[in-house]
């Protein structure tokens, strides 16, 4: 069942971030915890799970065929590390900051480009679960505050999927 503007029938859960860059790997870590606690993705027909270290503009390809997408990513605002943010697609659109000079492609810029070019193929429903990052220097471990926040993020993932 496609919602208006939906690109397909799947629910896609996508973790974004470099696991070698400390808390930048929080998105993937939250999805792994969700898988441990709430069962295998394969038990849920129509749900696809993907982890992407640094998808850049490739995120558009990953979203193809999704009716509903949940992105889980590390974010930086002025909040305390480990704070969980839930952003709708509309709220995300406000964060295309600095795209004039940004060389790389952040999630917000990529989604804005997708909406501009192929509005009909973008997911009809999209949320970003943002986990406030602390330390993003090189290394594989998460900081303690972010580690503690993973349970809340995993719970939020489960709520979004089960309420759908």
């Amino acid at each position: 069942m496609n919602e208006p503007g939906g690109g397909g029938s799947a629910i896609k859960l996508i973790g974004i971030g470099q696991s070698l860059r400390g808390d930048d790997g929080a998105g993937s870590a939250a999805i792994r915890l969700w898988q441990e606690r709430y069962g295998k993705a394969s038990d849920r027909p129509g749900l696809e799970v993907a982890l992407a270290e640094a998808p850049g503009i490739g995120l558009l390809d990953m979203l193809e065929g999704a009716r509903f997408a949940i992105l889980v990513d590390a974010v930086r605002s002025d909040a305390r590390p480990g704070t969980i943010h839930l952003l709708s697609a509309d709220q995300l659109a406000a964060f295309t900051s600095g795209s004039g000079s940004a060389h790389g492609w952040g999630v917000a810029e990529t989604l804005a480009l997708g909406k501009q070019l192929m509005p009909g193929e973008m997911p009809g429903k999209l949320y970003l679960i943002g986990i406030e990052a602390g330390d993003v220097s090189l290394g594989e471990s998460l900081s303690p505050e972010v580690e503690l926040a993973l349970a809340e993020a995993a719970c939020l993932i489960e709520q979004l999927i089960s309420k759908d």
Partner: protein
Amino acid sequence: MNQDIHIPALARVEGEGALTIRLKDGAVDEILLNIYEPPRFFEGFLHGRYFQDVPDFTARICGICPVAYQMSSVQALEAAMQVTITPEIRLLRRLFYCAEYIESHALHVYLLQAPDLVGHESAITLAADAPDLVKRGLRLKKIGNELLRTIGGRSIHPVNTCVGGFYHWPDAGAIHDLVPELEWARQASIETVRWAAGLNYPDFEQDYEFVSLNRIEEYAIYDGDILSSSGKRITPAEFEKHYLETQVERSNALHSHTLGNGTYFVGPLARFNLNYKKLRTMARESAREIGFKPPVHNPYKGLLARAIELVHTTDLAIELAGSYQPQGASHVEFDVIPGEGCGVSEAPRGVLYHRYIVDEQGLIRFARITPPTAQNFAQMEADLWAIAPTAIKLPQEEASLAFEHLLRSYDPCISCSVHFLELRIEKR
């Protein structure tokens, strides 16, 4: 959450760069290009690791050019342990590299540099104006990523490369199925060249020393000797004797110079200038059609060289993918022996040099990685000095854009070196 939050930048933290231009009495006093550069840390990471981990580790240095890191590292380790790969493995590595050129060049040409040349703030605003153009760029990039995934197992940080070859041969049917889309990509690349020829490039030329790989029989991407426009030709093992890295206090990146303390320029323009005659016929014809011929000394026209290389690599990929048939073992067997070796390949952004020392257990005892962007830093700074006297006369915003545009024309690697760019012009 019951109130708005402010996230100034989502955490894609693959590197940061800043540029400071200091003025004194109305003239440029100091130019500081400050770069945060992860490869230096990777050299430390690799110490004590098993050699076979290296291609997967170094692939993570960059989301855009992981194949380059894998290809330079396996060649260095194969040299260290005296491993000889089969011709079939070499052909597949060349095809793998084509995939990376297609996705990386499509990204830079259409999404990173084009907005500068057509006066748009970003690819997003350009997409509003010329959706079909940006869609063409995205489709080109996608076929590159698709080929990369089919060979490497993943489209961003591939995992199929090992010292000695590939863990598995990719499925021949899956590779052959990509040929029709590659044929579309070749036509799109030819159109890219025609479109790019009509863009308005700033009038700026410098007397550069260009450095790239070179091979007698092919346009060197996967391997070769190192050739300079000064006429000097050296082997990969001699690289560090001729191209020196020095620590610069203000930057985490090392800056490279030639033996005579000169700057040099690596990348598509260097390859085009030094290897023009080795381009595939179709790519050379494309260049001839728009009157683009070496030597080119305008860094902004690196975009045209990239577009020509898109024609070259799509055409080569069609041939290599079309004739691909797995034959023999996908990787050669060898004994782990201690040794030291160098590997050099042409990343989309230019010469990428690796050197490793391996001990008798196969553990890495020393690693050196010299990425192309680090080699271009000194040249980029020299170019900034050259445009600065004119640029600082412009209003602040236009001046910023002029400096950024120049730096972007070098296609500094997003992950390897730079996440652009906070500009400060200080007046005293």
